[in-house]
């Protein structure tokens, strides 16, 4: 039902050539209404907390049928059946993958299981949406990506900001140069809680609080940083070459194995940096990706942009940046006021003209369904998702080793400023 124009209009933005250059994966919402009446038949593996959020969106989508669920924890199965009562229940993902009914799977299990389940799914010929981070280390991410390329099956990860209108619109403005040269990206995610979930009985501690143990997760880097690092490279259209950082447990000394206090610096070849900081014993600054241009700043989590000096008129700005799609549109003028702008604090403007609502997860799941139906992998999705996870894991490695690392040549894709040096002649053709 949804075509690209609908998507853009619903998102409160009008489309432009520039925007599609920044966001080529939006072509997934094809202009043709060719998928009307068709359904993507999906299986949900690991319908825990995130899996249920995804199921709720998928259930509202007339193009989706949830035909199967798989979990190893009864309360999760019970909750999932509340959402999709018709779904067949499995307790082993390999059994679910044998089902002919299932065309694609949504994997929302803990991190350490993503690789095995994803590889099994590709082997079984299923399309895959896997939650972030995709792999437990860069090598796993790389293998998962290559498997997707070899099989030609759809591969999405849970990077919902890729479909969040305020990010899409912000990137369009950033790439058109409105904020000048982007000289730095400061990302942070602060919380003030122990990141624990209640455990019904002690032997379930590791099953429920898997995030806190290294065997299952790499903590703040794999759970949070991957979202924000992707915003950084999306804005810069550049991938870092070196990373350094430090991590420690400074406050929540409760037996956990992952850091509660981390800081990483990702450095591009031109010296521009992306910072990621997370402290989970103070929530004052919340979370943000502060995109710093020499003319202005974007804070997409708040949904706002700010200019260093005088802010432009949103109507004029839109006209110039979206001229391709613009018909003979009217320009709105705010009113009659001519209050001196310097007297006002720099309150900024909303990127989409309104307070943000939603986070892109609805559209991300809709896009996956659309791709499963059309069997067309949207451009750059797998690459963006690969690097989001790879950069987070590489940063973690720097924290662990306590030294500056260079991005491993063998795990580079031919993407943006990264290029693969052919290892042998065959390799060149394959990649």
């Amino acid at each position, binding site marked *: 039902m949804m075509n690209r124009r609908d998507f853009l209009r619903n998102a409160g933005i009008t489309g432009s050539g520039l925007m599609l250059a920044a966001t080529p994966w939006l072509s997934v919402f094809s202009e043709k209404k060719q998928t009307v009446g068709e359904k993507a038949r999906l299986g949900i593996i690991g319908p825990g907390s995130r899996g249920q959020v995804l199921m709720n969106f998928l259930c509202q989508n007339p193009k989706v049928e949830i035909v199967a669920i798989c979990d190893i924890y009864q309360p999760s199965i019970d909750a999932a059946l509340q959402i999709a009562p018709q779904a067949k229940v499995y307790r082993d993902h390999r059994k679910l993958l044998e089902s002919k009914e299932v065309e694609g799977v949504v994997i929302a299990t803990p991190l350490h299981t993503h690789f095995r389940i994803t590889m099994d799914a590709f082997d079984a010929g299923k399309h895959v949406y896997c939650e972030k981070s995709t792999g437990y280390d860069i090598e796993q991410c790389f293998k998962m990506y290559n498997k997707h390329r070899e099989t030609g099956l759809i591969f999405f990860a849970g990077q919902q900001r890729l479909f969040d209108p305020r990010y899409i619109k912000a990137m369009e403005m950033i790439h058109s140069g409105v904020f000048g040269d982007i000289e730095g990206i400061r990302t942070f995610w602060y919380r003030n809680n122990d990141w624990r979930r209640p455990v019904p009985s002690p032997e379930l501690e590791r099953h429920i609080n898997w995030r806190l143990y290294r065997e299952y997760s790499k903590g703040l880097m794999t759970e949070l940083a991957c979202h924000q690092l992707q915003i950084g490279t999306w804005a810069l259209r550049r991938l870092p070459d070196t990373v350094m950082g430090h991590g420690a447990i400074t406050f929540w000394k409760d037996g956990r194995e992952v850091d509660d206090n981390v800081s990483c610096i990702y450095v591009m070849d031109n010296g521009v940096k992306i910072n990621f900081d997370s402290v989970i014993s103070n929530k004052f600054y919340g979370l943000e990706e502060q995109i710093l241009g020499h*003319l202005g700043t974007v804070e997409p989590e708040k949904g706002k942009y700010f200019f260093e000096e*005088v802010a*432009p008129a949103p109507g*004029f700005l839109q006209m*110039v940046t979206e*001229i391709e799609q613009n018909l*003979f549109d009217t320009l709105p*003028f705010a009113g009659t006021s*001519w209050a*001196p702008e310097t007297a006002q604090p720099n309150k900024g403007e909303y990127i989409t003209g309104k307070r943000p609502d939603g986070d892109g997860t609805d559209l991300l799941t809709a896009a996956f369904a659309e791709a499963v139906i059309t069997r067309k992998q949207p451009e750059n999705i797998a690459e963006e998702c690969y690097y989001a996870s790879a950069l987070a894991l590489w940063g973690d490695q720097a924290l662990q080793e306590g030294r500056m690392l260079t991005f491993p040549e063998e795990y580079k894709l031919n993407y943006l400023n990264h290029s693969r040096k052919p290892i042998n002649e065959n390799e060149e053709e394959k990649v």
Partner: protein
Amino acid sequence: MYSGVQSVYNQGLLYGWFTAMHTRVDILLYGKPEEALRNVITLISDALHRLEMRANFFDSTSELGKLNQTAHLKPITVSDELFQMIALCKIYHEKTDGCFDISIRSDHYNAETFQSLILDEAHSTIYFTKQGLRLDLSGFLKGYALDKVREILQTHSIDNALVNIGNSSVMATGNHPKGDGWKVTVAATGKEYLLKNECLTTSGNETPGRKHIINPQTGKYVEGQRTVSVVTASGAEGEALATALFVAG
């Protein structure tokens, strides 16, 4: 206040903005190479800042500021431009039956105050017969500036432009890249106007609490949320008319 020109160029269109006259000026141009368009916006910015130095009521060192302090002592010779502006305001004062009145901020203002202003065209002098007379060109200046901008555009053969000074004074020349003329909406009223080589001037109180225009008949601020927009060939005339119509109710 920072007044440098900032701009965005995309597919032949240049949008430049800067502050002048206590507000933001927006200019959209196309139809010439990028450098030429940029150059014209810089020239416009320079011209508007010069205009401000001449006629800023709030700056005691502007030509108008000095005039207001000394013209009651003896006739003061002023620049052609300032003389021309004040002369125009006198004409509009007559044409609007006194509803448009630049002497409104004088001490002990009443409907007769304006008569204390004496213009001597032959000598380009201005004289105030009463102490306390003060001329305020703030409202008028934006419209006058639009007329200046039009001259600059014509000199540089830029046929298509949309110019906005503080949202209340808009001038459109030529055409939108995708249509005839330019469509503009006044947010306060939701009314849309199709401008073809015309100016749209809006006067009013945007919010119930906001008041900034004085009624010459009463000497008091006009109250209430109301908006008046006029379309005219000249920006200066638009300012005078919009103010007069707003005041007259």
